């Protein structure tokens, strides 16, 4: 059976006065039902841009989008990039749903929680408004909001951040979507609330057998919930594989650098952090060759200055493990254990 979502060579760029911003470039991945794919990257790496393109949420006048994002529905495949806006709109909320980073601002301040969930339900179901509210109470109950029947009448400002994110999840899932895109769902939340929400997402995924795309910058969160991960840098996927391989045998110097640079609450050695030097390139004038070259400690190991002249392909170096790097597997093994630079 085909995975539910197949993204192929998806590119999104925005023409601006300063030039073309290549926000995401040649992105391909798949997500199956019941599976969680994490898209990891720092700000400006293109992780949100990619998922908004899949959802058809970019303003088509402001963005140049190419490639495919195919939803394999029971009724047949639909490419959300080439399909008409009206067709894509009718997939939103029903076949694919999305939740956002800031639950504080993502709910309409003037409508009650119940109204907002019932509105989403009413789009794809026949029934009166009170049926919709009844359904909203069920959903709120499911996502763990106490006294759902009472709180359904309340307004977003009467809920805490964590509770609002639960409301967002309830609203996204009310039509039983097959794909849920969660864009930094816990970044704005406190750590104890974060673990509640992550657990809720896991439970909901099982309950609804959903494909989940988790967009985050937090490698800890990824390790916790994802089955597979794509690491993005400067608009491109630089590494993609099953989750354990990303952490134990990372195959790209950027991933290696990221893992080395984060302090860990479970390791008490007061070692100096191994920071990645420099900063990401501008998306308007990407360097020739590998975009990470300027910050990479290992590019000198690659002969003929290939990193500066040739964009590396996303190669499958080991089965199921892709990386966009000119280094050989033997060199990468050395890189993983090397101390690297201490900036």
């Amino acid at each position, binding site marked *: 059976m085909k995975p539910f979502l197949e993204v192929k060579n998806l590119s999104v760029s925005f023409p601006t006065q300063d030039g073309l911003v290549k926000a995401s470039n040649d992105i391909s991945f798949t997500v199956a039902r019941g599976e969680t794919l994490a898209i990891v990257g720092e700000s400006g790496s293109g992780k949100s841009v990619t998922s908004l393109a899949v959802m058809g949420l970019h303003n088509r006048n402001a963005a140049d989008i190419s490639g495919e994002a195919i939803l394999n529905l029971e009724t047949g495949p639909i490419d959300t990039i080439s399909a008409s806006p009206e067709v894509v709109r009718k997939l939103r909320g029903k076949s694919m749903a999305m939740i956002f980073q800031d639950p504080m601002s993502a709910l309409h301040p003037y409508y009650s929680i119940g109204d907002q969930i019932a509105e989403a339900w009413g789009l794809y179901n026949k029934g009166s408004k009170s049926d919709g509210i009844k359904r909203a109470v069920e959903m709120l109950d499911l996502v763990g909001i106490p006294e759902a029947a009472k709180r359904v009448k309340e307004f977003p400002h009467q809920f805490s951040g964590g509770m609002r994110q639960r409301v967002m999840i309830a609203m996204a899932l009310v039509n039983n979507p097959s794909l849920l895109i969660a864009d930094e769902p816990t970044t704005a939340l406190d750590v*104890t609330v974060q673990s509640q929400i992550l657990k809720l997402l896991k439970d909901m995924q099982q309950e609804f057998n959903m494909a989940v795309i988790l967009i985050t910058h937090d490698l800890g969160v990824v390790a916790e919930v994802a089955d597979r991960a794509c690491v993005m840098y400067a608009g491109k996927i630089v590494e993609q594989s099953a989750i354990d391989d990303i952490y134990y045998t990372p195959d790209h110097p950027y991933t290696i650098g990221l893992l080395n640079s984060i302090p860990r609450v479970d390791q008490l050695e007061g070692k100096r952090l191994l920071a990645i030097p420099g900063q990401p390139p501008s998306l308007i004038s990407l360097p020739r060759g590998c975009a990470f070259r300027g910050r990479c400690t290992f590019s000198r190991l690659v002969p003929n200055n290939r990193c500066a002249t040739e964009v590396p392909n996303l190669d499958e170096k080991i089965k199921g493990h892709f990386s966009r790097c000119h280094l050989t597997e033997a060199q990468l093994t050395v890189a993983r254990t090397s101390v690297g630079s201490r900036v």
Partner: protein
Amino acid sequence: MTEPILKLVGLKKHFESTSGGFFNKKKGVVKAVDGIDLEILPGQTVGLVGESGCGKTTAGRTVLKLYEPTEGQIIFQGEDITHLSRKRMKPLRAQMQMIFQDPFASLNPRQTVGTLIGATFDIQGITPPGGVKKEVERLMERVGLNPEHVNRYPHEFSGGQRQRIGVARAIALKPKLIVADEPVSALDVSIQAQVVNLLDDLQEEFGLSYLFVAHDLSVVQHISDRVIVMYLGKVMEEADKKDLFMSPRHPYTKALLSAVPVPDPIKGRKRERIILVGDLPSPMNPPAGCVFNTRCWKVQDKCRTEIPALQQIAPNHRLACHFPEPAA
């Protein structure tokens, strides 16, 4: 024993809040900081952690007297500064500096980096040897900025660079104490490490003391020597880093630590996870007894009525809990 740079004794900061209209004013008191004791030794870093609304930021600002303390004492280098006037505080301000979370918001967008860093000297009326311009360039170089960019404006720098400007400004007068309020939480992961390392280096070089206020336990763990865990204005637990992270005794500390995701999938799957129920109560209306009792999984009747005192349970380890976890 060495004299601490900073000593807080029962420091409290309460805010009065008024609600309601013209005719009936309801007064409420938010006990943002409700009794902190702490000592920071020269060259030491004390981390202040907790979730939003726990009072850590207020505590940091009260230490620098950006807020007038409600109660308690602030002793800086042996001198009680709790009730010093603005004027008498001014020379001391050179000794105690602050680094803010949002480097962009804390830098005047209409001033060049050179002016911004140089202003610290003007305010104190100090002329560094070799002149202000030279010193500013030296500082920029020291924090990893290109001194040629001295005439650029804050918006021409990236987030990480702006935080370096903030650091340069803070160290310009060679202070003894720096209060760093979430200095890396607005930065990308790869940039965070650069700034953390910079802070580490500067500490070593100048013998600085840090009060490091942050919500990210991983960063606090990395940078601190001692750690204080706060919840709703109260100190829950305070210990040396190793004790606190290896054998947390307060249920809240334990839950907090277990909630931090670890970038290690196999370990993560095996980890015991304590998921706290519910949300933080409103600081306007904190629970009676132990403030943590509404979310604590070990709660008993006593916790709902009796406030646990912060007690010494081991050398350098203090705890406020009726039913602590066993030592590991």
